[in-house]
Protein backbone atom coordinates (compact mmCIF):
# COMPACT_ATOMS: atom_id res chain seq x y z
CA UNK A 1 0.00 0.00 0.00
CA UNK A 2 1.45 3.28 -1.02
CA UNK A 3 -0.35 5.84 1.11
CA UNK A 4 -0.20 6.15 4.84
CA UNK A 5 -1.63 8.74 7.18
CA UNK A 6 0.89 11.03 8.82
CA UNK A 7 1.52 9.63 12.29
CA UNK A 8 1.02 12.87 14.20
CA UNK A 9 -0.72 13.19 17.54
CA UNK A 10 -4.42 13.83 17.35
CA UNK A 11 -6.25 16.87 18.60
CA UNK A 12 -7.89 16.82 21.98
CA UNK A 13 -10.93 18.27 23.67
CA UNK A 14 -12.58 21.30 22.14
CA UNK A 15 -10.28 21.58 19.14
CA UNK A 16 -11.76 18.37 17.72
CA UNK A 17 -15.10 19.88 16.70
CA UNK A 18 -13.51 22.90 15.05
CA UNK A 19 -11.01 20.56 13.40
CA UNK A 20 -13.83 18.56 11.82
CA UNK A 21 -15.39 21.81 10.55
CA UNK A 22 -12.03 22.86 9.12
CA UNK A 23 -11.57 19.45 7.53
CA UNK A 24 -14.96 19.63 5.86
CA UNK A 25 -14.21 23.05 4.37
CA UNK A 26 -10.83 22.00 2.91
CA UNK A 27 -11.05 21.99 -0.94
CA UNK A 28 -9.65 18.43 -1.26
CA UNK A 29 -12.11 17.13 1.33
CA UNK A 30 -15.00 18.87 -0.39
CA UNK A 31 -14.18 17.61 -3.91
CA UNK A 32 -13.24 14.13 -2.69
CA UNK A 33 -16.25 13.93 -0.41
CA UNK A 34 -18.57 14.98 -3.24
CA UNK A 35 -17.14 12.32 -5.56
CA UNK A 36 -17.46 9.62 -2.88
CA UNK A 37 -20.99 10.75 -1.94
CA UNK A 38 -21.96 10.64 -5.62
CA UNK A 39 -20.85 7.01 -5.95
CA UNK A 40 -22.47 6.05 -2.65
CA UNK A 41 -25.77 7.47 -3.91
CA UNK A 42 -25.32 5.74 -7.27
CA UNK A 43 -24.72 2.42 -5.50
CA UNK A 44 -27.72 2.83 -3.18
CA UNK A 45 -30.14 3.93 -5.90
CA UNK A 46 -28.69 1.76 -8.69
CA UNK A 47 -32.01 -0.01 -9.44
CA UNK A 48 -33.72 3.37 -9.84
CA UNK A 49 -30.99 5.07 -11.87
CA UNK A 50 -29.88 2.25 -14.21
CA UNK A 51 -31.79 2.45 -17.51
CA UNK A 52 -31.60 -1.32 -18.11
CA UNK A 53 -31.21 -4.58 -16.21
CA UNK A 54 -27.38 -4.91 -15.94
CA UNK A 55 -27.53 -8.64 -16.70
CA UNK A 56 -30.11 -8.56 -19.53
CA UNK A 57 -28.51 -9.72 -22.78
CA UNK A 58 -29.67 -8.44 -26.15
CA UNK A 59 -28.28 -10.66 -28.89
CA UNK A 60 -29.37 -8.22 -31.59
CA UNK A 61 -27.59 -5.31 -29.93
CA UNK A 62 -24.15 -6.80 -29.28
CA UNK A 63 -21.19 -4.35 -29.04
CA UNK A 64 -23.17 -1.27 -30.06
CA UNK A 65 -21.31 2.05 -29.94
CA UNK A 66 -22.57 4.71 -27.50
CA UNK A 67 -25.92 6.09 -28.68
CA UNK A 68 -28.97 7.97 -27.37
CA UNK A 69 -30.43 4.65 -26.18
CA UNK A 70 -27.21 3.21 -24.72
CA UNK A 71 -25.14 6.19 -23.53
CA UNK A 72 -22.04 4.06 -22.79
CA UNK A 73 -22.75 1.49 -25.56
CA UNK A 74 -23.32 -2.24 -25.10
CA UNK A 75 -20.94 -5.10 -24.35
CA UNK A 76 -20.20 -8.45 -26.00
CA UNK A 77 -23.52 -9.90 -24.79
CA UNK A 78 -25.54 -6.81 -25.69
CA UNK A 79 -25.79 -5.66 -22.05
CA UNK A 80 -26.03 -1.94 -21.36
CA UNK A 81 -22.57 -0.74 -20.23
CA UNK A 82 -23.96 2.28 -18.31
CA UNK A 83 -26.24 0.03 -16.24
CA UNK A 84 -23.36 -2.32 -15.52
CA UNK A 85 -21.11 0.59 -14.51
CA UNK A 86 -23.86 1.85 -12.18
CA UNK A 87 -24.37 -1.57 -10.56
CA UNK A 88 -20.61 -2.19 -10.54
CA UNK A 89 -20.25 0.61 -7.98
CA UNK A 90 -21.91 -1.71 -5.46
CA UNK A 91 -19.17 -4.36 -5.67
CA UNK A 92 -16.44 -1.72 -5.43
CA UNK A 93 -17.91 0.12 -2.45
CA UNK A 94 -18.90 -3.11 -0.68
CA UNK A 95 -15.34 -4.40 -1.13
CA UNK A 96 -13.91 -1.15 0.22
CA UNK A 97 -16.23 -1.00 3.23
CA UNK A 98 -15.95 -4.68 4.21
CA UNK A 99 -12.18 -4.84 3.64
CA UNK A 100 -11.56 -1.68 5.68
CA UNK A 101 -13.91 -2.92 8.43
CA UNK A 102 -11.93 -6.16 8.64
CA UNK A 103 -8.63 -4.26 8.61
CA UNK A 104 -9.59 -1.82 11.38
CA UNK A 105 -11.47 -4.27 13.57
CA UNK A 106 -8.37 -6.48 13.79
CA UNK A 107 -5.62 -3.93 13.18
CA UNK A 108 -6.65 -1.16 15.59
CA UNK A 109 -7.14 -3.39 18.69
CA UNK A 110 -3.84 -5.17 17.99
CA UNK A 111 -2.09 -1.81 17.58
CA UNK A 112 -3.66 -0.49 20.80
CA UNK A 113 -2.63 -3.55 22.78
CA UNK A 114 0.91 -3.62 21.30
CA UNK A 115 1.51 0.07 21.92
CA UNK A 116 -0.08 0.26 25.37
CA UNK A 117 1.31 -2.90 26.98
CA UNK A 118 4.66 -3.12 25.16
CA UNK A 119 7.00 -5.96 26.14
CA UNK A 120 6.52 -9.45 24.77
CA UNK A 121 3.01 -8.75 23.45
CA UNK A 122 4.34 -5.79 21.47
CA UNK A 123 7.30 -7.78 20.16
CA UNK A 124 5.08 -10.64 18.94
CA UNK A 125 2.51 -8.34 17.31
CA UNK A 126 5.21 -6.17 15.74
CA UNK A 127 7.07 -9.13 14.23
CA UNK A 128 3.76 -10.47 12.89
CA UNK A 129 3.09 -7.03 11.37
CA UNK A 130 6.58 -6.88 9.84
CA UNK A 131 6.02 -10.29 8.27
CA UNK A 132 2.71 -9.21 6.72
CA UNK A 133 4.21 -5.94 5.49
CA UNK A 134 7.14 -7.79 3.91
CA UNK A 135 4.82 -9.27 1.28
CA UNK A 136 3.71 -6.72 -1.36
CA UNK A 137 0.07 -5.78 -0.78
CA UNK A 138 -1.40 -7.11 -4.03
CA UNK A 139 0.75 -10.26 -4.04
CA UNK A 140 -0.57 -11.08 -0.56
CA UNK A 141 -4.16 -10.29 -1.58
CA UNK A 142 -3.86 -12.45 -4.73
CA UNK A 143 -2.35 -15.33 -2.80
CA UNK A 144 -5.04 -15.19 -0.09
CA UNK A 145 -7.85 -14.84 -2.64
CA UNK A 146 -6.42 -17.74 -4.64
CA UNK A 147 -6.24 -20.04 -1.63
CA UNK A 148 -9.63 -18.97 -0.27
CA UNK A 149 -11.25 -19.39 -3.69
CA UNK A 150 -12.42 -16.80 -6.24
CA UNK A 151 -15.46 -14.79 -5.04
CA UNK A 152 -16.24 -11.21 -4.04
CA UNK A 153 -16.56 -12.25 -0.39
CA UNK A 154 -13.13 -13.90 -0.35
CA UNK A 155 -11.62 -10.96 -2.22
CA UNK A 156 -12.91 -8.65 0.52
CA UNK A 157 -11.40 -10.88 3.22
CA UNK A 158 -8.09 -11.08 1.33
CA UNK A 159 -7.92 -7.30 0.87
CA UNK A 160 -8.93 -6.70 4.50
CA UNK A 161 -6.20 -8.97 5.85
CA UNK A 162 -3.62 -7.44 3.49
CA UNK A 163 -4.59 -3.92 4.60
CA UNK A 164 -4.58 -4.79 8.32
CA UNK A 165 -0.82 -4.43 9.14
CA UNK A 166 -0.82 -0.72 8.20
CA UNK A 167 -3.48 -0.11 10.86
CA UNK A 168 -1.56 -2.11 13.47
CA UNK A 169 1.62 -0.13 12.81
CA UNK A 170 -0.13 3.24 12.66
CA UNK A 171 -2.17 2.69 15.85
CA UNK A 172 0.81 1.31 17.75
CA UNK A 173 2.91 4.32 16.78
CA UNK A 174 0.18 6.71 17.87
CA UNK A 175 -0.29 4.96 21.21
CA UNK A 176 3.48 5.03 21.86
CA UNK A 177 3.49 8.78 21.24
CA UNK A 178 0.78 9.49 23.84
CA UNK A 179 0.93 6.71 26.41
CA UNK A 180 3.39 8.55 28.68
CA UNK A 181 1.56 11.86 28.57
CA UNK A 182 0.38 13.33 31.86
CA UNK A 183 -3.34 12.69 31.41
CA UNK A 184 -2.73 8.97 30.81
CA UNK A 185 -0.34 8.75 33.76
CA UNK A 186 -2.95 10.52 35.90
CA UNK A 187 -5.80 8.12 35.12
CA UNK A 188 -3.44 5.21 35.62
CA UNK A 189 -2.50 6.61 39.07
CA UNK A 190 -6.22 6.81 39.91
CA UNK A 191 -6.36 3.04 39.48
CA UNK A 192 -8.52 2.99 36.36
CA UNK A 193 -8.41 -0.40 34.65
CA UNK A 194 -6.18 -0.71 31.55
CA UNK A 195 -9.12 -1.68 29.37
CA UNK A 196 -11.00 1.46 30.34
CA UNK A 197 -7.91 3.65 29.88
CA UNK A 198 -7.40 2.25 26.36
CA UNK A 199 -11.04 2.66 25.36
CA UNK A 200 -11.84 5.96 27.06
CA UNK A 201 -8.54 7.86 26.94
CA UNK A 202 -6.12 6.32 24.44
CA UNK A 203 -8.43 5.40 21.54
CA UNK A 204 -10.17 8.80 21.18
CA UNK A 205 -6.78 10.50 20.99
CA UNK A 206 -5.37 8.27 18.28
CA UNK A 207 -8.49 8.32 16.10
CA UNK A 208 -7.64 11.20 13.71
CA UNK A 209 -4.80 9.50 11.78
CA UNK A 210 -6.83 6.28 11.76
CA UNK A 211 -9.76 8.11 10.13
CA UNK A 212 -7.36 9.48 7.51
CA UNK A 213 -5.92 6.01 6.94
CA UNK A 214 -9.44 4.60 6.53
CA UNK A 215 -10.09 6.88 3.54
CA UNK A 216 -6.70 6.11 1.97
CA UNK A 217 -7.28 2.38 2.51
CA UNK A 218 -10.74 2.65 0.93
CA UNK A 219 -9.00 3.90 -2.24
CA UNK A 220 -6.48 1.07 -2.08
CA UNK A 221 -9.22 -1.50 -1.40
CA UNK A 222 -11.38 -0.34 -4.33
CA UNK A 223 -8.34 -0.56 -6.62
CA UNK A 224 -7.44 -3.97 -5.20
CA UNK A 225 -10.98 -5.29 -5.69
CA UNK A 226 -10.93 -4.11 -9.30
CA UNK A 227 -7.51 -5.73 -9.75
CA UNK A 228 -8.63 -9.04 -8.28
CA UNK A 229 -11.83 -9.00 -10.36
CA UNK A 230 -9.71 -8.21 -13.45
CA UNK A 231 -7.62 -11.29 -12.69
CA UNK A 232 -10.77 -13.39 -12.19
CA UNK A 233 -10.40 -13.57 -8.40
CA UNK A 234 -13.19 -11.20 -7.38
CA UNK A 235 -16.85 -10.78 -8.27
CA UNK A 236 -17.92 -13.68 -10.49
CA UNK A 237 -19.73 -13.01 -13.78
CA UNK A 238 -22.44 -12.22 -14.72
CA UNK A 239 -22.68 -9.93 -11.63
CA UNK A 240 -21.18 -6.57 -12.69
CA UNK A 241 -17.83 -5.45 -11.36
CA UNK A 242 -15.64 -2.77 -12.92
CA UNK A 243 -12.55 -5.01 -12.83
CA UNK A 244 -14.21 -7.98 -14.53
CA UNK A 245 -15.82 -5.64 -17.09
CA UNK A 246 -12.32 -4.47 -18.02
CA UNK A 247 -11.09 -8.05 -18.25
CA UNK A 248 -13.84 -8.83 -20.80
CA UNK A 249 -13.34 -5.50 -22.61
CA UNK A 250 -9.66 -6.38 -23.20
CA UNK A 251 -10.77 -9.08 -25.64
CA UNK A 252 -12.77 -6.61 -27.77
CA UNK A 253 -10.42 -3.63 -27.87
CA UNK A 254 -10.51 -3.20 -31.65
CA UNK A 255 -14.27 -3.81 -32.09
CA UNK A 256 -15.66 -2.12 -28.97
CA UNK A 257 -13.16 0.20 -27.24
CA UNK A 258 -15.94 1.90 -25.25
CA UNK A 259 -16.33 -1.28 -23.23
CA UNK A 260 -12.92 -0.53 -21.70
CA UNK A 261 -13.24 3.22 -21.24
CA UNK A 262 -16.16 3.69 -18.84
CA UNK A 263 -15.44 1.14 -16.11
CA UNK A 264 -11.87 2.47 -15.96
CA UNK A 265 -13.03 6.08 -15.64
CA UNK A 266 -15.42 5.03 -12.88
CA UNK A 267 -12.57 3.38 -10.95
CA UNK A 268 -10.37 6.48 -11.38
CA UNK A 269 -13.16 8.80 -10.21
CA UNK A 270 -13.99 6.88 -7.03
CA UNK A 271 -10.35 6.18 -6.13
CA UNK A 272 -9.46 9.82 -6.77
CA UNK A 273 -12.41 10.78 -4.54
CA UNK A 274 -11.12 8.71 -1.63
CA UNK A 275 -7.53 9.89 -2.20
CA UNK A 276 -8.60 13.55 -2.23
CA UNK A 277 -10.69 12.98 0.89
CA UNK A 278 -7.72 11.34 2.59
CA UNK A 279 -5.38 14.14 1.56
CA UNK A 280 -7.76 16.81 2.81
CA UNK A 281 -8.33 15.06 6.14
CA UNK A 282 -4.60 14.47 6.49
CA UNK A 283 -3.90 18.17 5.98
CA UNK A 284 -6.49 19.24 8.52
CA UNK A 285 -7.25 16.55 11.13
CA UNK A 286 -3.70 15.33 11.77
CA UNK A 287 -2.12 18.79 11.79
CA UNK A 288 -4.50 20.25 14.38
CA UNK A 289 -2.22 19.46 17.27
CA UNK A 290 0.58 21.41 15.65
CA UNK A 291 -1.60 24.46 15.46
CA UNK A 292 -3.31 24.10 18.81
Amino acid at each position, binding site marked *: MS*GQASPRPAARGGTRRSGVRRALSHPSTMIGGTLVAFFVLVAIFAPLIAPFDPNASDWLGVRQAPSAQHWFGTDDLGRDVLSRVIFGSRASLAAGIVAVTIAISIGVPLGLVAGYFGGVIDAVISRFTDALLAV*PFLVLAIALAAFLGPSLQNAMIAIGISAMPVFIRLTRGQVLSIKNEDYITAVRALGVRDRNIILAHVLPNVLAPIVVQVTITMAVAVLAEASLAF*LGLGQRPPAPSWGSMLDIARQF*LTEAPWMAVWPGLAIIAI*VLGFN*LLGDGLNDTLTSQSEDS
Partner: protein
Amino acid sequence: MLNFILRRILISVPTLLLVSVMVFGLLKLLPGDPALALAGQEPDPAVIEFLRTKYGLDRPLPVQYAKWLGSVLQGDFGLSIRTRLPIGEMIVQKLPVTLQLSLQAMLIALLIGIPAGVFAAIRRGTPVDYIVSLIGLGGLSIPSFWLGIMLILLFAVSLGWLPSGGYVGFFESPLDNLRYTLMPSIVLGTAAAAIVMRHTRSSMIAVLKQDYVRTARAKGLRERIVVTRHALRNGLIPVVTTSTLHLGELLSGAVLTEQVFGIPGFGKMIVDGVFSRDYAVVQAVVMCSALIFLLLSLIADIAYVILSPRLRS
Protein backbone atom coordinates in the same frame (compact mmCIF):
# COMPACT_ATOMS: atom_id res chain seq x y z
CA MET B 1 28.85 0.09 9.09
CA LEU B 2 29.49 -3.66 9.00
CA ASN B 3 27.98 -3.98 12.46
CA PHE B 4 24.93 -2.05 11.32
CA ILE B 5 24.48 -4.29 8.24
CA LEU B 6 24.89 -7.46 10.30
CA ARG B 7 22.39 -6.20 12.89
CA ARG B 8 19.89 -5.35 10.15
CA ILE B 9 20.28 -8.81 8.58
CA LEU B 10 19.74 -10.44 11.98
CA ILE B 11 16.55 -8.40 12.52
CA SER B 12 15.23 -9.61 9.15
CA VAL B 13 15.69 -13.30 9.97
CA PRO B 14 12.71 -13.67 12.38
CA THR B 15 10.53 -11.67 9.97
CA LEU B 16 11.45 -14.00 7.12
CA LEU B 17 10.79 -17.03 9.33
CA LEU B 18 7.33 -15.66 10.19
CA VAL B 19 6.66 -15.07 6.49
CA SER B 20 7.60 -18.69 5.88
CA VAL B 21 5.08 -19.80 8.54
CA MET B 22 2.41 -17.67 6.85
CA VAL B 23 3.26 -18.95 3.39
CA PHE B 24 3.20 -22.53 4.64
CA GLY B 25 -0.10 -21.79 6.38
CA LEU B 26 -1.63 -20.63 3.08
CA LEU B 27 -1.93 -24.24 1.99
CA LYS B 28 -4.03 -24.88 5.08
CA LEU B 29 -6.54 -22.28 3.90
CA LEU B 30 -7.52 -24.56 1.04
CA PRO B 31 -10.90 -26.09 1.69
CA GLY B 32 -10.66 -29.85 2.01
CA ASP B 33 -7.62 -31.98 1.36
CA PRO B 34 -4.60 -30.04 -0.01
CA ALA B 35 -3.46 -33.18 -1.83
CA LEU B 36 -6.76 -33.13 -3.70
CA ALA B 37 -6.14 -29.53 -4.75
CA LEU B 38 -2.53 -30.24 -5.67
CA ALA B 39 -3.56 -33.21 -7.82
CA GLY B 40 -5.16 -30.94 -10.43
CA GLN B 41 -8.50 -30.91 -12.24
CA GLU B 42 -9.27 -34.65 -12.49
CA PRO B 43 -7.42 -36.28 -9.65
CA ASP B 44 -6.51 -39.94 -9.64
CA PRO B 45 -6.77 -41.56 -6.13
CA ALA B 46 -3.29 -43.02 -6.60
CA VAL B 47 -1.91 -39.54 -7.40
CA ILE B 48 -3.63 -38.11 -4.32
CA GLU B 49 -2.11 -40.82 -2.14
CA PHE B 50 1.30 -40.29 -3.75
CA LEU B 51 1.12 -36.51 -3.17
CA ARG B 52 -0.02 -37.03 0.42
CA THR B 53 3.02 -39.19 1.12
CA LYS B 54 5.38 -37.06 -1.01
CA TYR B 55 4.53 -33.82 0.77
CA GLY B 56 4.21 -35.53 4.13
CA LEU B 57 0.60 -34.36 4.46
CA ASP B 58 -0.17 -37.38 6.63
CA ARG B 59 2.37 -36.17 9.25
CA PRO B 60 1.92 -33.60 12.09
CA LEU B 61 1.93 -29.93 11.05
CA PRO B 62 5.24 -28.88 12.72
CA VAL B 63 6.98 -31.80 11.01
CA GLN B 64 5.44 -30.82 7.67
CA TYR B 65 6.59 -27.21 8.17
CA ALA B 66 10.16 -28.17 9.17
CA LYS B 67 10.45 -30.42 6.10
CA TRP B 68 9.06 -27.72 3.80
CA LEU B 69 11.32 -25.02 5.27
CA GLY B 70 14.36 -27.28 4.92
CA SER B 71 13.66 -27.64 1.20
CA VAL B 72 12.95 -23.93 0.73
CA LEU B 73 16.22 -22.98 2.45
CA GLN B 74 18.01 -25.07 -0.18
CA GLY B 75 16.12 -23.22 -2.92
CA ASP B 76 13.91 -26.24 -3.56
CA PHE B 77 10.31 -25.07 -3.93
CA GLY B 78 9.27 -28.35 -5.57
CA LEU B 79 7.99 -28.95 -9.09
CA SER B 80 5.37 -26.90 -10.88
CA ILE B 81 2.27 -28.97 -11.57
CA ARG B 82 1.67 -27.05 -14.80
CA THR B 83 5.11 -26.94 -16.36
CA ARG B 84 6.70 -29.90 -14.52
CA LEU B 85 9.80 -27.72 -14.09
CA PRO B 86 11.55 -27.01 -10.79
CA ILE B 87 9.96 -23.82 -9.41
CA GLY B 88 13.35 -22.45 -8.35
CA GLU B 89 14.52 -22.62 -11.98
CA MET B 90 11.35 -20.91 -13.18
CA ILE B 91 11.94 -18.05 -10.74
CA VAL B 92 15.56 -17.65 -11.90
CA GLN B 93 14.28 -17.44 -15.50
CA LYS B 94 11.41 -15.05 -14.88
CA LEU B 95 12.71 -12.74 -12.20
CA PRO B 96 15.17 -10.85 -14.48
CA VAL B 97 12.27 -9.97 -16.82
CA THR B 98 10.31 -8.35 -13.98
CA LEU B 99 13.45 -6.78 -12.56
CA GLN B 100 14.16 -5.12 -15.93
CA LEU B 101 10.57 -3.85 -16.12
CA SER B 102 10.71 -2.55 -12.54
CA LEU B 103 14.03 -0.76 -13.06
CA GLN B 104 12.83 0.87 -16.30
CA ALA B 105 9.60 1.87 -14.53
CA MET B 106 11.58 3.36 -11.63
CA LEU B 107 13.79 5.28 -14.07
CA ILE B 108 10.67 6.77 -15.69
CA ALA B 109 9.25 7.51 -12.23
CA LEU B 110 12.40 9.33 -11.11
CA LEU B 111 12.69 11.30 -14.36
CA ILE B 112 9.12 12.56 -14.00
CA GLY B 113 8.59 12.52 -10.24
CA ILE B 114 11.70 14.39 -9.04
CA PRO B 115 11.44 17.48 -11.31
CA ALA B 116 7.66 17.62 -10.77
CA GLY B 117 8.07 17.33 -6.97
CA VAL B 118 10.80 20.00 -6.86
CA PHE B 119 8.75 22.29 -9.07
CA ALA B 120 5.67 21.88 -6.85
CA ALA B 121 7.73 22.47 -3.69
CA ILE B 122 9.33 25.72 -4.86
CA ARG B 123 5.93 26.95 -6.05
CA ARG B 124 4.16 25.77 -2.88
CA GLY B 125 0.64 27.08 -2.44
CA THR B 126 0.39 28.38 -6.02
CA PRO B 127 -1.96 27.01 -8.71
CA VAL B 128 1.05 25.20 -10.23
CA ASP B 129 1.52 23.28 -6.96
CA TYR B 130 -2.18 22.34 -6.83
CA ILE B 131 -2.18 21.17 -10.47
CA VAL B 132 1.00 19.09 -10.06
CA SER B 133 -0.33 17.63 -6.80
CA LEU B 134 -3.67 16.80 -8.41
CA ILE B 135 -1.92 15.11 -11.34
CA GLY B 136 0.11 13.15 -8.81
CA LEU B 137 -3.03 12.05 -6.99
CA GLY B 138 -4.55 11.16 -10.37
CA GLY B 139 -1.50 9.00 -11.13
CA LEU B 140 -2.10 7.12 -7.89
CA SER B 141 -5.78 6.63 -8.75
CA ILE B 142 -5.40 5.12 -12.22
CA PRO B 143 -5.61 1.32 -12.23
CA SER B 144 -2.44 0.09 -13.95
CA PHE B 145 -4.33 -2.53 -15.96
CA TRP B 146 -6.71 0.13 -17.33
CA LEU B 147 -3.84 2.43 -18.27
CA GLY B 148 -2.22 -0.55 -20.01
CA ILE B 149 -5.39 -1.22 -22.00
CA MET B 150 -5.68 2.46 -23.00
CA LEU B 151 -2.03 2.61 -24.13
CA ILE B 152 -2.52 -0.58 -26.18
CA LEU B 153 -5.59 1.01 -27.73
CA LEU B 154 -3.65 4.15 -28.66
CA PHE B 155 -0.13 3.03 -29.51
CA ALA B 156 -0.75 -0.53 -30.74
CA VAL B 157 -4.30 -0.63 -32.15
CA SER B 158 -4.75 2.95 -33.46
CA LEU B 159 -1.23 4.13 -34.29
CA GLY B 160 0.50 0.76 -34.69
CA TRP B 161 3.74 2.15 -33.26
CA LEU B 162 4.34 -0.47 -30.59
CA PRO B 163 3.46 -4.17 -30.18
CA SER B 164 0.33 -4.80 -28.11
CA GLY B 165 1.97 -7.55 -26.09
CA GLY B 166 4.64 -10.22 -25.83
CA TYR B 167 8.30 -10.10 -24.95
CA VAL B 168 11.70 -10.34 -26.62
CA GLY B 169 14.77 -10.86 -24.45
CA PHE B 170 17.32 -8.05 -24.21
CA PHE B 171 20.16 -10.26 -25.47
CA GLU B 172 18.09 -11.49 -28.44
CA SER B 173 17.40 -7.99 -29.74
CA PRO B 174 17.94 -4.91 -27.53
CA LEU B 175 15.82 -2.70 -29.80
CA ASP B 176 12.87 -5.10 -29.89
CA ASN B 177 13.24 -5.59 -26.15
CA LEU B 178 12.80 -1.84 -25.69
CA ARG B 179 9.77 -1.77 -28.03
CA TYR B 180 8.10 -4.57 -26.07
CA THR B 181 8.88 -3.19 -22.62
CA LEU B 182 8.30 0.53 -23.20
CA MET B 183 4.51 0.56 -22.67
CA PRO B 184 4.59 -1.81 -19.67
CA SER B 185 7.33 0.30 -18.08
CA ILE B 186 5.30 3.49 -18.55
CA VAL B 187 2.25 1.78 -17.02
CA LEU B 188 4.25 0.51 -14.08
CA GLY B 189 6.09 3.81 -13.71
CA THR B 190 3.00 6.04 -13.59
CA ALA B 191 1.95 5.29 -10.02
CA ALA B 192 5.59 5.17 -8.97
CA ALA B 193 6.13 8.65 -10.49
CA ALA B 194 3.21 9.96 -8.45
CA ILE B 195 4.69 8.53 -5.26
CA VAL B 196 8.17 9.88 -6.04
CA MET B 197 6.64 13.28 -6.80
CA ARG B 198 4.76 13.41 -3.49
CA HIS B 199 7.83 12.33 -1.49
CA THR B 200 10.08 14.80 -3.32
CA ARG B 201 7.59 17.62 -2.78
CA SER B 202 7.17 17.08 0.96
CA SER B 203 10.88 16.45 1.50
CA MET B 204 11.86 19.57 -0.48
CA ILE B 205 9.31 21.70 1.39
CA ALA B 206 10.91 20.60 4.67
CA VAL B 207 14.45 21.20 3.41
CA LEU B 208 13.66 24.61 1.92
CA LYS B 209 12.69 25.78 5.43
CA GLN B 210 16.09 24.83 6.90
CA ASP B 211 18.54 27.43 8.18
CA TYR B 212 21.33 26.52 5.77
CA VAL B 213 19.02 27.16 2.81
CA ARG B 214 18.08 30.52 4.31
CA THR B 215 21.79 31.27 4.74
CA ALA B 216 22.48 30.35 1.11
CA ARG B 217 19.73 32.72 0.03
CA ALA B 218 21.02 35.44 2.34
CA LYS B 219 24.43 35.11 0.68
CA GLY B 220 22.71 36.29 -2.49
CA LEU B 221 22.88 33.00 -4.38
CA ARG B 222 20.46 32.62 -7.22
CA GLU B 223 17.34 30.55 -6.39
CA ARG B 224 18.29 27.93 -8.97
CA ILE B 225 21.67 27.40 -7.32
CA VAL B 226 20.07 27.30 -3.85
CA VAL B 227 17.60 24.63 -4.97
CA THR B 228 19.88 22.44 -7.10
CA ARG B 229 23.17 22.69 -5.13
CA HIS B 230 21.95 23.07 -1.55
CA ALA B 231 18.36 21.91 -1.05
CA LEU B 232 18.11 19.09 -3.59
CA ARG B 233 21.13 17.20 -2.25
CA ASN B 234 19.48 16.71 1.16
CA GLY B 235 15.92 16.75 -0.12
CA LEU B 236 16.54 13.67 -2.22
CA ILE B 237 17.84 11.47 0.61
CA PRO B 238 14.39 10.23 1.71
CA VAL B 239 13.38 9.98 -1.96
CA VAL B 240 16.27 7.58 -2.67
CA THR B 241 15.29 5.36 0.25
CA THR B 242 11.56 5.34 -0.45
CA SER B 243 12.21 4.70 -4.16
CA THR B 244 14.35 1.72 -3.26
CA LEU B 245 11.56 0.41 -1.04
CA HIS B 246 9.01 1.12 -3.74
CA LEU B 247 10.87 -1.20 -6.13
CA GLY B 248 9.41 -3.99 -4.00
CA GLU B 249 5.91 -2.57 -4.47
CA LEU B 250 6.50 -2.55 -8.23
CA LEU B 251 6.44 -6.34 -7.98
CA SER B 252 2.77 -5.97 -7.05
CA GLY B 253 2.12 -3.77 -10.06
CA ALA B 254 4.04 -6.13 -12.30
CA VAL B 255 1.45 -8.85 -11.63
CA LEU B 256 -1.22 -6.85 -13.46
CA THR B 257 1.04 -5.20 -16.04
CA GLU B 258 2.56 -8.49 -17.12
CA GLN B 259 -0.92 -9.98 -17.36
CA VAL B 260 -2.15 -7.15 -19.62
CA PHE B 261 0.91 -7.23 -21.90
CA GLY B 262 1.44 -11.01 -21.81
CA ILE B 263 4.98 -10.68 -20.47
CA PRO B 264 6.36 -13.96 -19.10
CA GLY B 265 7.74 -12.50 -15.87
CA PHE B 266 7.64 -13.15 -12.15
CA GLY B 267 4.31 -11.34 -11.76
CA LYS B 268 2.57 -13.40 -14.42
CA MET B 269 3.95 -16.52 -12.75
CA ILE B 270 1.71 -16.03 -9.71
CA VAL B 271 -1.38 -15.49 -11.90
CA ASP B 272 -0.60 -18.58 -14.00
CA GLY B 273 -0.02 -20.45 -10.74
CA VAL B 274 -3.39 -19.36 -9.37
CA PHE B 275 -5.32 -20.43 -12.47
CA SER B 276 -3.63 -23.80 -12.86
CA ARG B 277 -4.09 -24.39 -9.12
CA ASP B 278 -0.30 -24.62 -8.94
CA TYR B 279 -0.22 -23.67 -5.26
CA ALA B 280 3.47 -24.43 -4.76
CA VAL B 281 4.24 -21.75 -7.38
CA VAL B 282 2.01 -19.24 -5.57
CA GLN B 283 3.76 -20.02 -2.28
CA ALA B 284 7.19 -19.65 -3.91
CA VAL B 285 6.32 -16.28 -5.45
CA VAL B 286 5.00 -14.93 -2.12
CA MET B 287 8.10 -16.18 -0.29
CA CYS B 288 10.48 -14.68 -2.88
CA SER B 289 8.56 -11.39 -2.94
CA ALA B 290 9.04 -11.09 0.82
CA LEU B 291 12.73 -11.93 0.51
CA ILE B 292 13.16 -9.28 -2.22
CA PHE B 293 11.27 -6.71 -0.13
CA LEU B 294 13.41 -7.39 2.95
CA LEU B 295 16.57 -7.15 0.82
CA LEU B 296 15.40 -3.84 -0.64
CA SER B 297 14.55 -2.46 2.79
CA LEU B 298 18.06 -3.45 3.92
CA ILE B 299 19.54 -1.63 0.90
CA ALA B 300 17.30 1.39 1.62
CA ASP B 301 18.50 1.52 5.25
CA ILE B 302 22.15 1.25 4.20
CA ALA B 303 21.65 3.92 1.53
CA TYR B 304 20.06 6.19 4.12
CA VAL B 305 23.01 5.80 6.48
CA ILE B 306 25.52 6.39 3.65
CA LEU B 307 23.70 9.41 2.25
CA SER B 308 22.79 11.09 5.52
CA PRO B 309 25.90 12.85 6.89
CA ARG B 310 24.43 13.07 10.40
CA LEU B 311 23.87 9.30 10.65
CA ARG B 312 27.20 8.53 8.96
CA SER B 313 29.14 10.42 11.59
